[in-house]
Structures are given as structure tokens and as C-alpha cells.
């Protein structure tokens, strides 16, 4: 049995779902961020897998797209963490279910 | 980084076991990130209540105690105490004894400043090299002490009315041999550190003590002189015939840690000058006057002080005509120089606090006594 595209896609799908669950269920903003990073990783894995196994001339596109995703992820992490710190400073908490300013 | 992300302040203990507290000394620093917001010192780990013990012993028996206060400059402590007793009892020291005392005190100052400057360099992170260079010279001084008094660290050499023994044969050559390498080592240490950009960055404008504060906080010694105050007991209130010798008082510019360091280095040079002059003019005659073993000074009080390596070392004695002092008080320069610890450390980083502490050049035996 050789490795096929399905193998990688399966792993990526499971990773994505795990990331989704983490992002949706965590109380801590940093925890949520970790889930999002996992989801982005799963997407990257999918892109590279398609690029490797897919037919046609778009192989480089997968790599390029992954590079962009990584870039965006870095920017996103920096801003999100800055946000978390900023929120902590004004509200003394980073627990998302307590950030209900708009409800009041 | 610390400005960007604020964190909760927490207490960090610097000491009692810490590589750069120079003994069992503890600073309870409240830090916010790397910044020190409050500093409180905790001392007393080495307290032996010498002032109480001294009230139970005769005047002569108390001399060994003074060795053990500032254990890095026992000769100076002997000298300060003996001067106080002599002042109390009205005893004169013969010229030879005075000259020997001056030589010993200046050698002790060299030894102590070797340690102080080296340890300060260590605190700034110059890993062991300057202190090892200085230690090499300090060993020679301790050898000289050993051949003179039989002990290296706790010399117990001064006596009331003079010194314990006359100088041993070969002493003068030994000291003269030592002077040139010592000069070279001071120059080496200066070359290694004084002009070093990193050292300047670490010590310049760190732990600044303005001269008003320095005077108001009773600082003395290199701390006071580093702040630009020309005050040296050897000049201002000469004892043991210091007025015969020619030397200068080094004073700093801004009162920062760097000024204290260069003042110490320059003091070492001046000490060498004094030692040379004293050796050249070493008078003959007895080294000590005869003093009764059970000395009973007349009732009264005396405050005598000398310029110890760390500052003004004073002894305040009260006599009730008994064989032992009624009150025996040491003015410890190390302790009183710590009065400005908070001013020196708060607002700086932990690294600055260490440098500030190193620039005071404390000896815990003297703080706690």
C-alpha cells in the first residue's frame, strides 16, 4: 500500500476538526488562538498534499499559497496576542466568556 | 519588552545565598518585570553582637574582635580601635609605630580595594578575570601580612600604643618588590575595564547618588568621594602622621557606580605613593609604648575615626574606669553606606541593582558585626 492523497487529506481533516473544537470550546483567548493555528496548519497540509499529488501545473501554487498562509498566520498571531494582552489590561481577564461588554 | 507587556509585581529575593551579595546579605526586591519597584534589605545573618561581647573583655582582648568585623580590612579595624583607646587613655604612639601602622593600613586598603574593584567587575559580568588579576596582587599583600603578623586575614597586629611586633627582616624589600607589579595590575585593570564600552554602559549613570544626598545620608569613603565630595579623613583629620605624606583625594564626577570604581582604582595608586613615602622615611626607635595589660582608662568617652577602605570607620568608647569598655560602638561604614540602597536601586533593573550593590563594596561582617 502506497501513500495516497487520501491519507494526507484524512490527517488534515482530523487536525482541522480538532482545531475547530479547540477554537470553539476554550475559555482562554490564547487557547482559542492555538485552535486557530492548528486549523491553519491543517489547511497548509491539505494545500501541500494537493500540490504534491495533484495533476496539472499548479504545483508551485500550492507551495506559494502555503507560504502566504504561514505569513498571515504569523501576523494574525502577533495581533491576536497583542489584543489579548490589551484586553487583559483593560478587563483583567482573557477568558472569552467574560468578555460580554456588548451584552450589557 | 517590559514596557510592552505589563506583569504583576512580585518579590524576588536577592540573597542571602546569591553569587553577588558578597556574603549573607539579602535584598528583598519587589520587581515588575525587570524593573525594581521597591528594595528592602534584610541583614543580621552574621550578627555576633560584638558590641556586647566587647563589654565583657579588657581593652586589649577586644582587638581580635575588630579583626572580625570587616574581615577584608582587619588592619584598618585594629588601627581604628587602637586609636580610640589611645585617645581615651591618652597614650602616645612612637613614630616608628605610627609609620608601620600607616604602611599596614595602606597595604590593607590596597588589598581591600583589590577585592572591591574585582568583585565589582564580577558583578558587572566581567567573569572572574579582573578579580583574579587583583587577587594575585592581594595574595602578595596577604603574604606580607603573614610574614609580619603571622596571620593573613585576621591579623591582630596593632596594639594599644603601637604595633605587636617590629617589622621582620626583609619586609622592606618585600614591599618594594610588590609595588611595581601592583602599579602594573592597576593599570591593567583600568585598561581592561575603565575604557570598555560595555563596562561604561553598565556602570555609567547607574545608581547615581548626588552629592547632597551623599552628605545627607552620612555616606563616607569612596561612596562620598565618588559623588564629588573631597572628603578623606586622612587629609581632614590626620592620624598616625598622615599629614607628612603627600597624596591626593580622587573624586568622581556624577556619583555613579563608575565613579566609585575609578575612585577606588585611583585610591590604590595613592596608597602606593603613601607606602613608598612611608618606607622611605621609616623612623627608628621603638615600635610601641609600654601599656599595662589591664588598661584602665580614665572615665570619659572618645570617638576616634580613620579612613578605612570602605569609609569612615569610627570607634566610640565610653569608659567607667573599669578594665573593659563600658560602651563599645563601631561606626560601620558598610552599614551606613547602605542608607542609600533604595535610592540607588529603585527604578533601575535587577542588573543595575546588582551593580549598585557591588559599587557600595559592602562587607557583611561589618554590617552585622
Amino acid at each position: 500500500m502506497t501513500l495516497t492523497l487520501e491519507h494526507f487529506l484524512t490527517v488534515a481533516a482530523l487536525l482541522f476538526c480538532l482545531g475547530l473544537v479547540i477554537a470553539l470550546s476554550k475559555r482562554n483567548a490564547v487557547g482559542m488562538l492555538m485552535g486557530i493555528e492548528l486549523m491553519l496548519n491543517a489547511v497548509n497540509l491539505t494545500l501541500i498534499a494537493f500540490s504534491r499529488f495533484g495533476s496539472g501545473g499548479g504545483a508551485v501554487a500550492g507551495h506559494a499559497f502555503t507560504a502566504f498562509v504561514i505569513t498571515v498566520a504569523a501576523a494574525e498571531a502577533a495581533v491576536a496576542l497583542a489584543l489579548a494582552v490589551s484586553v487583559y489590561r483593560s478587563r483583567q481577564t482573557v477568558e472569552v466568556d467574560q468578555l460580554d461588554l456588548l451584552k450589557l | 519588552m517590559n514596557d510592552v507587556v505589563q506583569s504583576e509585581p512580585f518579590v524576588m529575593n536577592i540573597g542571602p545565598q546569591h553569587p553577588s551579595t558578597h556574603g549573607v546579605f539579602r535584598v528583598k526586591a519587589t520587581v515588575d518585570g525587570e524593573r525594581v519597584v521597591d528594595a528592602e534589605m534584610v541583614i543580621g545573618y552574621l550578627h555576633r553582637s560584638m558590641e556586647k561581647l566587647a563589654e565583657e573583655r579588657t581593652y586589649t582582648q577586644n582587638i581580635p574582635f575588630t579583626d572580625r568585623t570587616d574581615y577584608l580590612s582587619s588592619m584598618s579595624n585594629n588601627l581604628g580601635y587602637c586609636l580610640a583607646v589611645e585617645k581615651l587613655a591618652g597614650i602616645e604612639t612612637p613614630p616608628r609605630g605610627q609609620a608601620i601602622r600607616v604602611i599596614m593600613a595602606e597595604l590593607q586598603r590596597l588589598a581591600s580595594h583589590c577585592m572591591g574593584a574585582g568583585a565589582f567587575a564580577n558583578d558587572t559580568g566581567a567573569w572572574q578575570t579582573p578579580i583574579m588579576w587583583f587577587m594575585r596582587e592581594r595574595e602578595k599583600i596577604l603574604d606580607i601580612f603573614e610574614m609580619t603578623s603571622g596571620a593573613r586575614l585576621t591579623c591582630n597586629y596593632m596594639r594599644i600604643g603601637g604595633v605587636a611586633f617590629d617589622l621582620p627582616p626583609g619586609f622592606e624589600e618585600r614591599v618594594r618588590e610588590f609595588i611595581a607589579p601592583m602599579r602594573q595590575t592597576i593599570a591593567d585593570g583600568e585598561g581592561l575595564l575603565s575604557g570598555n564600552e560595555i563596562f561604561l554602559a553598565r556602570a555609567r549613570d547607574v545608581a547615581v547618588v548626588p552629592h547632597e544626598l551623599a552628605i545627607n545620608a552620612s555616606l563616607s569613603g569612596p561612596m562620598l568621594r565618588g559623588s564629588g565630595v573631597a572628603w578623606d579623613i586622612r587629609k581632614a583629620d590626620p592620624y598616625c602622621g598622615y599629614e607628612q605624606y603627600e597624596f591626593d583625594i580622587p573624586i568622581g564626577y556624577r556619583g555613579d557606580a563608575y565613579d566609585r570604581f575609578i575612585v577606588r582604582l585611583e585610591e590604590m595608586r595613592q596608597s602606593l605613593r603613601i607606602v613608598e613615602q612611608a618606607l622611605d622615611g621609616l623612623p627608628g626607635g621603638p615600635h610601641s609604648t609600654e601599656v599595662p595589660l589591664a588598661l584602665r582608662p580614665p572615665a570619659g568617652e572618645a570617638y576616634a575615626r580613620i579612613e578605612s577602605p570602605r569609609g569612615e570607620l569610627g570607634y566610640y568608647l565610653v569608659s567607667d574606669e573599669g578594665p573593659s569598655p563600658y560602651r563599645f560602638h563601631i561606626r560601620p561604614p558598610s552599614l551606613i553606606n547602605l542608607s542609600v540602597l533604595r535610592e540607588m536601586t529603585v527604578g533601575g533593573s535587577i542588573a543595575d541593582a546588582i551593580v549598585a550593590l557591588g559599587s557600595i563594596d559592602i562587607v557583611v561582617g561589618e554590617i552585622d558585626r
Partner: protein
Amino acid sequence: MTRWWDGVELARVAERLVPGSVARAEAGACLLRPERAVETLRALRDDAETDFAHLTNLCAVDLWDRFEVVYHVQSLVRNRIACLKVETADRESPAVPSVTEVWQGAWLQESEAYDLFGIRFEGHPNLQRILLWDGYPGHPLRKDFLAMPGGLQPGLNEFAGAAPRPEPPVRPVP
């Protein structure tokens, strides 16, 4: 050479600056009244003639019925030094005003005197034991320390298995 102020002469200066400040004047020292002491010392520090900018030494002496706090103050510019004293009223609850606001250098020395003599320095910002630990019984530099509460004896007083030692001879408090 540093010149010492004559106590009587200094008393005259102090009386001129703060009338009613001197309790007694001797040749060696000038005794101040505790209630005017801080005011007097500040005036002496700021006066151009005395200029006692530098508090050199501060210590206490046990005089059996009272305590005496000794200040050695000097002028770095005029190179003159003086000895000033303040006595506590009694022995039971000795207190003198603190001079920390006049000289910051008094801070640690007053703490030490408090620790070892039990003299309260009123107005001291942070008066606590510095050399001994909190809760240490008695004040060791008092002459009657061995008779003080806690009953401390010289040497180790708690040694497991050792026979109880006889009471040490203690000089009585007059």
C-alpha cells in the same frame, strides 16, 4: 586637623538658634532637650556657622536609669565636628525623636539602636529590628539584658538532653 566644638560654645550657638533647646552643656558634649532636639539639630545643620551637614555617628549608651543617644555631627566644609546628646526620660519606655528627616543617614543607625537598646525613635519611617529577628526577647546591649524577659543566658540556652544550668549572676538594676 578636624577641630572639635566645645560643648559650651555649641550650647551658646544652639540657644541662639532655638531658645530653650539645651538641657546641659559640658566640655565634650552638648545635651539637648528631647522635645526640641529635631528642631535644634535642623537649625544647626542649616546654620552657616555650624553647618552640620554630615551626621557621622549615632549611637546609644545605657546609663542604667536612662539612655543617652549620642550624635556626632560634622561640617565637611568647615572641618569641624561636634558631639551632641539627647537623653531619654526614663528606662521603661525610652523614646527620643527621630532625626531621619534631618539626616537620612540616621535611618539605619536609629534602627540599630532600636534593635539593640529598645529606644523608640518617634517619627522614624520604618522602625523595626534589623540585626535580630522580630520577636527576639529583650534588647541585648542593655546592661540588664540577662535579667530581661526571656531569661536568656550566655551561650546556648537550649541544648537537648543537657542538664539545666544554674542562673547566671546578674547585676541588679538599681
